[in-house]
Structures are given as structure tokens and as C-alpha cells.
């Protein structure tokens, strides 16, 4: 079953449940579903923070800040930038791994970003519908408990694949400093069988950053836009975990 809820059963009743309280004020009772479990939300915000740090420090590794005056012993600017990058890199790796593990124990939505049901026709039809919605060709969006099919496709490629790529190439680069006897080199050294010259790994790692920048731009825009435009809560869902549906 996809997450498309034409309109959950209780929605019908709850939507109309506008009851006056004792003070005569109206409260609107809205149907809510618990979508994003705590680990999903924690991983999301930790990873988002780590990725922002990685982008800033990564850019500064590629194009360092202007020269620092004084004795070399007096400053450690590049050292700190690289340290922050490597620290955020390990954090991202750990929380990304945690997120993968959660997909095995968590609810249905926790698995969404790790696959695309390529074989299901209905899925692609709904992707098309979402594209039409974003292209202003559909007046009404559909309601989904989890990610809509287009978002799922974008999450899988833009996040799961790209972040995996960044972690793999990042650790391969990191293993160069750790030495060829390090566990990092044993685990990720194979990257240098694909690109024997690590200069190419640097270039691909760097291009990967720009791919992620684009994902984040679209992602944040879509999150804010959907929050305003669609018939469900978006941003607050990633904070509280609950999805609210509204008319």
C-alpha cells in the first residue's frame, strides 16, 4: 500500500468536528497521524546540521581563507577547518548509519527514503501527478501520510545516494591521511581502484557537494511551500513527528 490516503476514515468526521467549548470559542479538531518517529527526526536534524557544516568547511578546504599573518605556530586555521570537516563527516556517517538501521525497526515511513518501487505503475502515475502539481497543472494536491512519491524519488536519489557517495569518497580521502594500514583505508581504499589518482576523488567529492547543495535548496523550498500550500503539515511534522491534515 502506498501512503496515499484519499481521506482517512476519521478525517471525514473530525474535519467537521468544530465544537464550541464552554467559553463559546471554536476549536478546530484536526486529524493527525504519527509519521516521523523520534529517531527519524533526530537523525534528520543532526544530519542536516552536519551537512551544512560539511559544505561550509568543504568549500573552505577547496578554497582556503586568506593567509594568516604571524608565526605558523600562532594559528591553526586550516587545521581547525579540516578538523571540523572530519568531525562533522564522522557524525554524518554515524547518524546516517543509525538512520539506515532504524529503517529495519521503524514504521513504514522510515523505509521510504531507501528505495523507489520502480516496478509499480501506480507509483509512477502518482509521481507524474506530483510533477503536474508542481508544474501548476493540477489544482489539488493529493494527501500523503509520508513522503509523496515525487518526494520519495527525490529523497532516495538526492539524499540517500548522494550522501552515501559523499561518505564513501570522504572516508577514502580521510584514509589517505590515516595511512594505508588504517581501517579507513581497508574499508574505503577500493575507491582508489576506480580513480587511481586521488585528485579525481577530490574533484568528484567536490562535485558531490554541489549536487547536495542543489538537493538542499529544492528540499527546503519544497518543505516550506508544501507547508503553506498543501493540505498537510510539513515542517512541524519534522519537529513533532505528527502529520496534521487540514482543509
Amino acid at each position, binding site marked *: 500500500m502506498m501512503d496515499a490516503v484519499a481521506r482517512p476514515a476519521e478525517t471525514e468526521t473530525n474535519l467537521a468536528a468544530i465544537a464550541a467549548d464552554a467559553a463559546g470559542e471554536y476549536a478546530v479538531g484536526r486529524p493527525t497521524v504519527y509519521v516521523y518517529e523520534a529517531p527519524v527526526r533526530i537523525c534528520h536534524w543532526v544530519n542536516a546540521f552536519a551537512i551544512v557544516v560539511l559544505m561550509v568547511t568543504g568549500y573552505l578546504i*577547496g578554497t582556503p581563507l586568506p593567509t594568516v599573518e604571524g608565526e605558523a605556530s600562532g594559528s591553526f586555521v586550516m587545521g581547525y577547518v579540516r578538523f571540523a570537516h572530519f568531525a562533522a563527516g564522522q557524525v554524518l556517517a554515524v547518524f546516517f548509519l543509525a538512520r539506515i538501521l532504524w529503517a529495519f525497526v521503524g514504521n513504514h515511513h522510515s523505509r521510504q527514503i531507501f528505495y523507489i518501487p520502480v516496478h509499480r505503475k501506480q507509483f509512477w502515475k502518482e509521481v507524474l501527478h506530483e510533477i503536474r502539481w508542481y508544474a501548476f497543472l493540477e489544482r489539488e494536491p493529493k494527501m500523503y501520510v509520508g513522503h509523496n512519491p515525487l518526494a520519495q524519488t527525490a529523497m532516495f536519489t538526492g539524499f540517500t545516494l548522494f550522501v552515501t557517495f559523499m561518505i564513501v569518497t570522504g572516508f577514502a580521502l580521510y584514509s589517505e591521511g590515516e595511512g594505508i594500514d588504517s581501517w579507513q583505508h581497508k574499508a574505503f581504499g577500493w575507491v582508489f581502484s576506480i580513480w587511481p589518482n586521488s585528485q579525481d576523488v577530490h574533484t568528484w567529492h567536490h562535485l558531490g557537494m554541489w549536487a547536495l547543495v542543489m538537493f538542499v535548496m529544492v528540499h527546503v523550498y519544497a518543505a516550506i511551500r508544501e507547508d503553506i500550500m498543501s493540505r498537510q503539515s510539513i515542517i512541524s511534522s519534522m519537529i513533532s513527528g505528527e502529520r496534521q491534515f487540514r482543509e
Partner: protein
Amino acid sequence: MGATTETFYSVIRRQGITRRSFHKFCSLTATSLGLGPLASARIANALETKPRTPVIWMHGLECTCCSESFIRSAHPLVKDVVLSMISLDYDDTIMAAAGQQAEEILEETRAKYKGQYILAVEGNPPLNEGGMFCIDGGKPFVEKLKVMAEDAMAIIAWGACASWGCVQAAKPNPTQATPIDKVITNKPIIKVPGCPPIAEVMTGVVTFITTFGKLPELDRQGRPKMFYSQRIHDKCYRRPHFDAGQFVEEWDDEAARKGYCLYKMGCKGPTTYNACSTVRWNGGVSFPIQSGHGCIGCSEDGFWDKGSFYDRLTTIKQFGIERNADQVGMVAAGTVGAAVAAHAAVTAVKRLATKRDDANAKQDH
């Protein structure tokens, strides 16, 4: 040819070298190979008892800079290596024999030392037009290489040419110059890259193979770990300036005079595996970075095809235009940003229009 059955020790003793100098040489060699103190005795023993290893040194498409480097080795003195340690039976550049006589040596060595000789290759074979672009002794070099490789114990691929292809393989590589390991696939190959490789690294490799009768431990790329397991950057004496964030920004600026890090001037030290920053060049006198110029990555695969030596970010040609990752990324991200902004604007307009429609609809009732 009989000389090859002699040992290294008997040859040098005949040349009047004392036993004391012989042991000095053995311990120095052990140190330069990064082996422990016990290795010195093992080297001495091997050199005293084992017959010298025959070496055939062939030249394909190359510039001879590897040979030039090799004969300038300060330690172990190249005259010891070439003349005593190994029996260099054939090297068409420096041997006296020529023509028919020289070619006969190849046949003779191949027959007499089947499976025992070392084939050292400088340069590489061009494969296009049936190997026509490099004719040696009336035959395409690639044929000669294959024949000699057939019965060799192992192959040494000298320099960037034999290891990776080097400038003659630069795009679009009209002659189809091809590194040795892509042509010979059934023999152990040791790559000793560099343009040229450091003399002491070359003699160190030869010393190891001849004394221990096997190849040293190789890394994933087929390079000897003892000389190629660290980057120039890992042992560079300017590294403290790198960590401090002190960079040369322009040739001849104050920072250049102070000897700051050359990272921003395109130094490839961070991606280059070689021993320059430890062994250095010309008997340890200096190395490029010490002379104020960044490393160009001469021991790395494809270093000749990666844009300017003076750019920090690699030039990418795959997109049809020559740009670096930031330029490509910024254009792409800028396009996405513009699309997002446009989409937001249309959304806002539509929303207003829809609201008005809704309002009108209500009024109609």
C-alpha cells in the same frame, strides 16, 4: 655473460672494495629500504652467496629521464648497482654493443635465464597501427616487449610512462601509448612512477629485488609500499604553514619569500604519493617544493591531463567546457536557485488568483 654467475661480493672484492665498506653499504641499504637492523645481515648474506640477477632494460616511447635519474643515484652508488650488484646485460642506451650483436644478447639472456631475469621497462608501447609508432631493432617495440616479458621473472615499470602512460598518452593519445600493465597481464609488475622516479628509489627497488629475489610489498596500485605509501603533503616541511592557513597567494608575494605553503598555487602534494619530501633529489639536496614550486603530481596517474599545474581545483573537461568543480557547481546551483525563485513567484501569483476566484465564487452565491 659468465659474470652473471658471480656474486656481488666477489665482484666488489675484486675491485678492491674492503669488507668494511661492504657492510657499511649493506646497513645503509637496509636503512634506505626502511628495513630493520637485522636486514643488513640478510642483505650481506644474500650478496655474498647469491649469483647476481640479470637485468634487461628496454626503452619504449620515453624521454630517457628515468635513465638520467638512475645514473645520478648517490646512494647506493649507481656504479655499484649497475656494475656489480646486478648484471645489466642489456640497456640499449648505455651499452657498448649495438645492432645485431646487441639483439643477440636479448635472445641469449632469454634462453639462458628463463624465468630468472628482471625486465626493466622505461617508456611504454604505442599500440596504434600495429605498434608502428615505436620501432626498435626493425620490429614494433610492443612485440619485443611481449617476447621478453614471456620469460621474465618480474617486470619493473620505470616512471610515469611505463606505469601510467605519461605525456605521450595525453588526450587524444594519437599513438595509443599504453602503460605496461595493460599490455602484459600475466607477470608480476612493479610500478615505480615519477617523471622521473627518484634515483635512490630506483636503486632501492633494484637492491631489494636482487637481494631478496622477490618483489617488495606493493600497494593497491602496484607501487612499492616502502617508497609510495605516503603523500608529499604528509611529510612536507611546509606543512605547518598549511595547517596554520598561511599560503602563497601569488608568485613573488611576501608569503612566497617566507616559504609559506603552495597549496593555493596548485601544489599537488596532497594527492601525490612519492618520496620527494623525505628522500629529496640530487643526493638529498632539495626537492621542487623546497625550491619554491608546487608539486605537479608527476608520479600520479593522468597528472598530464588535469588542467593547469597552478590551479588548486582540477579543470573538468567532461562537460564540454573547461571549468573547475566550483564553477560547474555554482552555475548549476544558480540555475536551480533561479528555478526555485521563479517557482515561488508563480506559486504566489497563482495563490492570489485562486483566492480571488474563491472570493468571487462566494460573492456569486
